[in-house]
């Protein structure tokens, strides 16, 4: 058990280290001048270029920059912003080139928006997906079943940003049925209500997958001997389906949920962009347009950490649920 967890944790740490080094090399130590590259061709003044160079420390050798960068992540460091030194506590992700805000802070204020959207999306795709899937499995072979499967297949095959965009245009812009996104500072009520529209469409898109998983799993389970036994004992159909079959049928679906949870955090990226939700994804896209290097790097690092940690948690959770995992 402990050995398994240790092995998985080691893997996670090695992945994170490589991601760190790779991002650093990509952004800082390539063949061209990152300050020039990040300065932007039109807005670049010599003053700005100099400022970026100094705050990046690209005038020093790569190895030195490298240690400085990791020192910043581990214990914090001082960074020159617009000529003046500023302390950046650990884990230091630097300061935005454009606004001068500390990247860590900027990400921390936006994280709840992304997390809330992901949670609401999950609530929607689990309820809609599983209930529809179970319904289709119980009416297997009927027109309803074929309709559900066909619809989920078609709906799930269309690129999601197209569906998201059309949904946004029709429900929040052209016919404002659903409220638009409001910042948390405008009150928690409007904020929550504003997240409903993006959560609905993202949830429905994810649900198309869960309908099919839940249906297939339920069809499988309903053909099991113990279900037949339960039926032959005279237990009501409701009880057979929901007490006996559903629990067993859901276990593979839960596995997929675990796999999806990490992906969901970046799955919200496009949705945030479309609906103007001020989350990590939208922030990353904006900073890309502004060539705001520290923010881009910070987001990529945080995104990787989230995915790796989530995967680790899911894997360890499995090793508790299913002892066979540990042996592999």
């Amino acid at each position, binding site marked *: 058990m402990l050995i398994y967890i240790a092995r998985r944790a080691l893997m996670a740490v*090695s992945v994170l280290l490589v*991601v760190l080094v790779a991002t650093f090399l990509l952004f800082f130590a390539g063949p061209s001048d990152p300050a020039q590259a990040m300065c932007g061709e039109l807005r670049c003044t010599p003053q700005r270029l100099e400022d970026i160079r100094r705050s990046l420390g690209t005038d020093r050798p790569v190895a030195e920059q490298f240690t400085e960068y990791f020192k910043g992540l581990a214990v914090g460091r001082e960074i020159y912003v617009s000529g003046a030194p500023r302390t950046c506590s650990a884990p230091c992700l630097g300061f935005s080139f454009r606004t001068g805000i500390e990247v860590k802070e900027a990400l921390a204020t936006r994280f709840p928006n992304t997390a809330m959207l992901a949670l609401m999306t999950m609530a929607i795709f689990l309820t809609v997906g599983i209930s529809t899937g179970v319904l289709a499995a119980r009416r297997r072979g009927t027109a309803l079943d074929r309709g559900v499967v066909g619809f989920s297949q078609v709906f799930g095959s269309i690129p999601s940003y*197209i569906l998201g965009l059309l949904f946004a245009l029709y429900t929040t812009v052209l016919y404002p049925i659903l409220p638009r996104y409001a910042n948390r500072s405008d009150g928690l009520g409007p904020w929550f209500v504003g997240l409903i529209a993006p959560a609905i469409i993202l949830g429905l898109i994810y649900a198309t997958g869960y309908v099919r998983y839940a249906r297939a799993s339920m069809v499988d389970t309903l053909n099991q001997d113990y279900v037949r036994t339960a039926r032959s004992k005279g237990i009501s159909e409701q009880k057979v389906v929901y007490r006996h079959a559903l629990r067993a049928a859901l*276990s593979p679906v839960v596995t997929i949920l675990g796999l999806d949870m990490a992906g969901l955090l970046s799955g919200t*990226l*496009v949705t945030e962009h479309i609906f103007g939700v001020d989350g990590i994804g939208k922030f*990353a896209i904006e900073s890309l347009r502004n060539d705001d290097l520290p923010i881009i790097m910070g987001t990529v690092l945080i995104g990787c950490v989230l995915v790796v940690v989530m995967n680790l948690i899911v894997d360890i959770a499995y090793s508790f649920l299913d002892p066979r995992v540990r042996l592999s």
Partner: protein
Amino acid sequence: MATGSDLWGVRARDRWPTRTIDDRRKRALALTMGSTTEVADDSAARATAAAATDRRSGRSPSQIAWDRLKRDKVAITSLVIVIFFILVAIFAPLLVALEGEELNKYHPELISALNTYPIIGANPQHWFGVEPRTGRDLFAVWAFGARPSLIIGFVAATFSTILGIIMGLAAGYLGGKVDKVITWIIDLLLSLPFLLMVLALVPIIQKRFAAPGEILTAEETSSIRFVVLIGILVFFGWIGLARLIRGEVLSLREREFVQAAKVIGVPTRAILFREILPNLVGPIIVSASIAVPAYITAEATLSYLGAGLVEPTPSWGRTVSNAQNAYARYPLFLWPPVLSIALLVLALSLLGEAIRDAFDPNTRR
């Protein structure tokens, strides 16, 4: 180990059963592939008919799959749609000439000076109207926009399939250190948030192409973006197939015919390509056919987000992005690219699933 690639990217291919480490997951993942009873009952009648013909003649799995595909109405309809878009892409210059227009020809005279919206709608000179502000012919933008989508989709799928085959064969057959390294790379790539990484990488890699201080022309930037995009999609795209092939090779390696070939001294390369690879044609074709719509979606999504293709290369994804704000007043701008992407990706996906069903032995019972 969930994938960083997600809903928006290459998702389905990451779910081949071979990536699993235990039975529990295997069962879950088999569900996502639709390879269990679900498929079987969908086409039970077809399957019986196919099984009857199978017994009469000794045919290869590919031939059987092709015969079943020909009888699948959804597959044929999807194929017709895909061919339609391929023809549009090939004959784009001809179609646009037929309309009497050319790509990137501006018509400021058709733009209202008041609100930058066009003063005309769809008409015989401009089949899809003209673009707000610039007055470019939208039919030309649409017809030429089919090209990058399809080229990126098919080229990236070809290269990632080749890379996936090579890595999978190497990891599975050579084993040992090679296997460890490749498996580790696969796990690493799966741990990255795909879309976020690609968004960040595209502009950075693009800038690596230019000499310091050099300012690229729009055409140069555009063609560099094109190559960078394909490269990145391939870089993240081969893992699914590689893992699948690795798993298959691990079991094929121990089979009698491979052992026999080894014993009589067949060189390793011949064993790999003559003995093992022909057994993997099915999964390879299936994987490639699912990859194409995934890459087209990825290109359109990235272009929509501003990290994909740039002017002057036309791209449906970018047109959608430009058109969304003008939507309320000028829906004609948005609909052609939106419908085209949706239809093309839908047709390719359904075709991919039909191919998978056709190759799936479970539906053949």
